[in-house]
């Protein structure tokens, strides 16, 4: 019994089918609960009510980066061990990551307008997120452009590897280029630097909710991809004389 067993599409389908009905209500509770809890927090003494965008902004930004890392790991597994589910999971994750990046950018703009007085600033964090968004777009476009599914998985895998290095590099390059408005980190472990518990706990719940949401979408999309593959295989078999 090892984790590689679930690289078998049949086992993966069975496990994900069993887990999904449990995940959905759990994610709904976390998301709705976290957002409502976050919405009912008192306004910040400097930022006012606008601080509540944080409960969408921070989790989506966190997921935007983590989904790319997940795609990197999935691509590596595909390149090294040739498990098809892994490649399909990477493919399924990319649009979710792109949307998360977009949510982070849009909520960030909506938050920046009242607090910094500007919708957009060429700040290192903001700029590197825009570049990350471009990487997601390129990755998705490459999946769409290549017809042979195995070649597509290989090519996007290589692109993901190279892209990861450069996404990281862009982040530090942007830091060097200009000093920004964006605060350093939102969830520092050091006491005194971190925000008060009133905001922190609902934020944790929202983060868990976003993660579960990603997991659900990922499983559903991967299942769809597997079914598309099966349909294609069936059609190919029927078309054969």
């Amino acid at each position, binding site marked *: 019994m090892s984790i590689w067993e679930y690289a078998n599409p049949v086992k993966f389908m069975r496990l994900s089918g069993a887990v999904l009905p449990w995940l959905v209500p759990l994610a709904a509770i976390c998301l709705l609960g976290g957002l409502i809890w976050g919405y009912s927090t008192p306004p910040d003494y400097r930022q006012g009510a606008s601080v509540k965008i944080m409960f969408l902004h921070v989790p989506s930004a966190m997921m935007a980066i983590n989904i790319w890392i997940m795609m990197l790991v999935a691509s590596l597994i595909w390149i090294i061990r040739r498990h098809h589910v892994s490649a399909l999971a990477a493919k399924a994750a990319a649009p979710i990551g792109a949307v998360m990046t977009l949510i982070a950018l849009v909520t960030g703009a909506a938050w920046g307008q009242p607090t910094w007085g500007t919708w957009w600033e060429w700040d290192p964090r903001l700029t590197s997120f825009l570049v990350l968004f471009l990487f997601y777009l390129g990755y998705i*476009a490459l999946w769409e*452009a290549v017809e042979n599914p195995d*070649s597509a998985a290989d090519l996007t895998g*290589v692109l993901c590897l190279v892209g990861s290095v450069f996404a990281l590099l862009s982040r530090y390059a942007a830091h060097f*280029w200009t000093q920004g408005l964006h605060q350093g980190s939102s969830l520092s472990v050091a006491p005194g630097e971190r925000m008060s518990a009133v905001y922190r706990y609902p934020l944790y719940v929202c983060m868990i909710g976003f993660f579960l949401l990603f997991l659900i979408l990922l499983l559903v999309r991967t299942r769809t991809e597997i079914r598309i593959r099966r349909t294609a295989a069936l059609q190919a078999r029927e078309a054969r004389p």
Partner: protein
Amino acid sequence: MTALLLRDLRLAIRAGGGFGLGLAFFLILCTLVPFGVGSDGDILGRIAPGILWVGALLACLLSLDRIFALDHEDGSLDLLATAPIPLEGAVAAKAGAHWLTTGLPLVVAAPLFGLLLHLPLQAVPNLLISLLIGTPALSMLGAFGAAITVGLRRGGLLLSLLVLPLYVPTLIFGAEAVRRGAAGMDATTPLIFQAAISLSTLALIPFAAAAALRINLR
């Protein structure tokens, strides 16, 4: 590898279109910018470092699909893949030929274009050095993008989407070096970063590009 390099150079020069195209594009860009932002020398001088680097980047992008596409069409890329030299070496040679035909002319012509855009004279050495160090990275990364998109229909458009995000760090450090030169500041740090990017792409990208080519030729 030398033979391949010379062959690509000869093709670029004799077949026409490849060699001067980047330069002509750069010249057009430098002509269009003053129409767009106004001919005020102060403003032009201030934005010149960025415009020059963005121009170099776009001029480079313009000729990228020529690296592998023509050889893919007439089948010589398959021959290269089965040739006794490693495919990584072939990629490096082809990227080198691309640099010699687009990157190097840009470096040589850059002071002239800087003059057109009112770039302060003291920034010209920095412009030359940063382009000289940075354009090899552009050619290598471009070869990677070209290798990924080689047998695709409408690969050209996809190529720019894939390659431009990869160009971001090079652009940032390059433009920063020129800007520091224009302000009379020391530009060693961005130049060192740029050299690091170029050297690591030289060392690693041939493997990634060759892997992509092998997938596409399979």
